[in-house]
């Protein structure tokens, strides 16, 4: 079935937002958890549990933003960019996160 070209752009946009909400949102939640698990000034067990329990709120917020953003590109830039920054900060210092 042919999709009319006038319909194609908005459909691709929605598809990109769905992906941003599902995968981008999970990636952001993952990197957020990793980031807080490394940098919170708490003992290790509390750092990890606090960060992990908060991750679902981050994923929810990301999913809402993926559809609320002005454009799909913007949604991906913000969600993907934040995830990348938090992820780099969390995974680059290899020793820091393992402190007790």
């Amino acid at each position, binding site marked *: 079935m042919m999709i009319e070209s006038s319909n194609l752009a908005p459909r691709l946009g929605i598809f990109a937002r769905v992906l941003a909400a599902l995968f981008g949102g999970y990636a952001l939640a993952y*990197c957020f958890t990793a980031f807080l698990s490394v940098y919170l000034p708490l003992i290790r067990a509390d750092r990890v*549990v606090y960060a*992990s*329990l908060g991750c679902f709120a981050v*994923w929810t917020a990301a999913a809402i933003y993926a*559809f609320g953003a002005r454009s799909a590109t913007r949604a991906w830039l913000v969600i993907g960019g934040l995830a990348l920054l938090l992820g780099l900060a969390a995974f680059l210092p290899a020793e820091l996160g393992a402190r007790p």
Partner: protein
Amino acid sequence: MSLRQSMAGLHTWGGLLPIWLLFVVIFTGTLACFDKELERWMRPGLQTPGQMQMNADDVRQWLKNNVSEELHAYWMHPPTTREPYWQLGWEEHDSGERGRKLFAPVTGEALPDTLGGNFFFSLHYQLHAGTFGMYVVGLAGMFMLVALVSGVIIHRRIFKDFFTLRPNANGQRAWLDGHNLFGVIGLPFHLVMAYTGVAIFVASYMPAGVQVAYQGNPLKFFHEVAGGYHREELEQPGGTPIALERLLADARAQWDGGEVGWISVHHPDDASAVVDIRRRDPSRIGSPQDTLSYDAATGELLNVQQAGTAYRAYIWMAGLHMGQFGGSLVRWLYVALGLAGCGMLIGGLQVWLRKREARGGAGIALVRSLNVAVLGGLPVACLGLLWANRLLPAEWAMRQTLEGWSFSLLWLAIAGWALARRGRAGYRPLAWLAAVLALGLPLLNLLLVPQGHLLASIGRGDWALASVDLTLLTIGLLCLLWVRPRTQREARTRLAEVTP
């Protein structure tokens, strides 16, 4: 596109996609509030009142006499008011296979197997599909959180609309009011349940923290967070085990008379065997995590668990979700709010349908068929399971499997019928069926279970058991009320509703 428009789109489609799965999760979760009462109802051997003669060592002896394979671990739970029986579970060392038995209070005999009330609980959190099902339910929980948040955003006048119910307005408007009413009444509950629900399996869903802080080693994480005790296997035969009852007496003394909950024995045949005794305290939302670990042979106290704040917080959240505190008051409150959740889903589906029925659109027949298949099919299949439990002879070894098949086949048959009728089937035939099944069960009990039927249970003041039969009667009567022949005037009003 404004924010409200894009949120409306997200709410509509992101809500529609998982809605039937969410109905299964919320409906069975509501039933699981009374899983232990259903367990007792489904096992007539438990319904005779009497003093428990059995102790922990008798349970261990049964295991020794009846299971010959080497065990990785076994665990047992003493009788309580809600669960007046010994529970025993075990895992075989080589195959990893698990077994479960319950023991009658008076005779100490192993009860015949049944799916029991546990069936609804497992369906609720993993759809009887193991780890895969657990992830599917988790994703559905995330969809629910997103639908709740986007629903609040598109709700223009959340306070004013709450007091607006227009049952005589046109269909779509009335259903929207209903959807809003149930959604707003239950909103705090639904948010908390969805959030704590996904949080229970946080360690599986979100491994990031373990990855960066524990080198990806979850066992190290569990050990540090929970403060539990673990002893590596020595691969040497163990000594003569000490009597469990001695350890239980010691544990009660350590807790100043506190109650004993789960007792678990790890690698019982090895020299490293450990007995863990966990405290039970139903007066707490999250039960206290101060397990005592003993050497299984010498009875030496090896470790007193001291869970950190983080773990206590997690246990509190999980406890809030499970609703095992607060007695029947909290359980009935959870049931009411769970039903409000079902009402919210049904209302939402009707709004979706009415809006599109008016102007036509794709997928209407599919959505309508799925509604009948799931919203109607699941409750009827649950009633069918209770019938199978009553009618299949308890001594059949295959009973558990056959109960499962009865549930699945009945549901599949209803789903097939609903799809074949392309959604024009309607709920009335199912309501008739539900009424017959629900009203029939208490009657069947009168014939089949002399100690468990309504007259007997009310007679001895066993309201927990009687409440199952009474609820079935109520459901049956409500279904009858719904399908009753309507007078001409009522029919006219209904006609006016659908044709504005």
